[in-house]
């Protein structure tokens, strides 16, 4: 009898754990829209660059994980960081730099912590200086200073500068 009870309890605990942890597939993919150009972490940057037009500054550095160069394309209000793989370059980080651009959910630099929570809900991880929201293969991070958003990043979960 005890054994059966233990087994049932174990199965219930397991099911409860599975229900608590959202499957990676079910997670949202947060994307940034610059004008009419949609930019997603993990996307091939080629077509994105063609749509965005000229960038203001550009940096490159030897890639740690892949043969080739990591690159940063800097535009007026945001920057796109890419890594090379198989002859193409893919986005691993998008950084919003000023309040002339906003996330698809309407949050921009200068917003308050509660504005972010109103738009995105409870963060998956929070400290005094940042709020993190997990997405599918990526996460969004809002950097705070004095409770105000000072920088917004869309980051790849595996590739990091």
């Amino acid at each position, binding site marked *: 009898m005890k054994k059966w009870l233990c087994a049932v309890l174990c199965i219930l605990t397991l099911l409860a754990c599975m229900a608590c942890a959202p499957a990676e597939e079910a997670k949202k993919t947060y994307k940034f829209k610059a004008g009419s150009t949609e930019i997603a972490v993990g996307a091939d940057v080629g077509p994105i660059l063609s749509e965005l037009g000229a960038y203001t500054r550009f*940096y490159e*550095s030897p890639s*740690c994980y892949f043969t080739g160069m990591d690159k*940063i394309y800097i535009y007026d209000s945001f920057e796109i*960081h890419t890594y090379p793989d198989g002859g193409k370059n893919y986005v691993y*980080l998008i*950084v919003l730099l000023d309040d002339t651009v906003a996330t698809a959910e309407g949050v921009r630099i200068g917003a308050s912590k509660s504005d972010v929570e109103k738009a995105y809900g409870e963060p998956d991880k929070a400290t005094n200086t*940042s709020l993190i929201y997990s997405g599918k293969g990526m996460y969004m991070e809002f*950097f705070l200073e004095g409770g105000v958003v000072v920088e917004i990043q869309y980051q790849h979960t595996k590739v990091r*500068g």
Partner: protein
Amino acid sequence: MKKTTRICITLLLCLAIVASTVGVLAFVQALVMPKYMSMLTREGALIAEYYNETTTHDVIFVGDCEVYESFTPPTLWEEYGITSYIRGSAQQLTWQSYYLLEETFERESPKVVVFNVLAMKYGEPQNEQYNRMTLDGMKWSKSKLAAIKASMTEEENLLSYVFPLLRFHSRWSELTGEDWKYLFSRDTVSHNGYLMQTAIKPRPEVDREGVRLSDYTLPERSFDYLDKMHALCRENGAELILIKAPTNNWKYWWYDEWDEQICNYAAENGLDYYNFIDNEEIGLDWSTDTYDGGVHLNVYGAEKMTAYFGKILQERYGIKDHRDDVALVRVWSAKLTAYYNEKKELEKKQ
């Protein structure tokens, strides 16, 4: 035929079959293993070259690319008579530095160990490709086994390090002339662990810093291995010196918050820590002394860095000038010749 003779013949036949199978597998394994002989991948050959050394060293460097691109042992010898070796490798993690050092102390007794702290930022295994570049080159020992266990990513397994054929069999279809050429022997790619670069690509005049991080705390695991490295040096009567190479690129940015943690660690543990970033006394010129826009030093920058650090090693740590030792002079003269020959060859190709 007698029964015992038949048994002997059967046994011999079995042995011959087993021996030839092992031989064929060993041959195929040697063939498919990456050779790391091309200019783009040669850092993968660094770790194995150490075992060719015939003399010991007073100074051992451990760490990532910032050690094998910032210091040149031939310059340390030429200017100060200091014997040294760089046991560096691409993205060498703190626990790999520890186990390489442990293995080094089994073979020799350096007076000083120099550890570059950039790798302290990594608290967990990073990438199989870089693991391989460090671990496959190590000779089998308890240190190698421990290094593998500490370094494996989730996708890796110990067996593939014991039998690399299991990992690299798929290279069968990608074999090149290099795999045949270097099947049984390899060229020497380094100068006591220093990987020479003569190209010049200036650092951008308007450079940028690293991206903002949510947490600047250096991982506990890195400090655990730094503790172990310190203890190992103490047990072996060697001085551990912490350094940060002078390079500071946005991709491999050294944050002030990290520097503060290393300064505190050094102070608490009675260690010396030299951060060479922005140290003007070295005399680096970022328009000529880097080959990749400021990420690494080229040979001209590394020679300046080495000349500066050699003086510190000699004056503050009393590292001996061995230029009166005839046997060592003979060995190092050959090394210097190889060093200047490669420098000349590479400069011709620029």
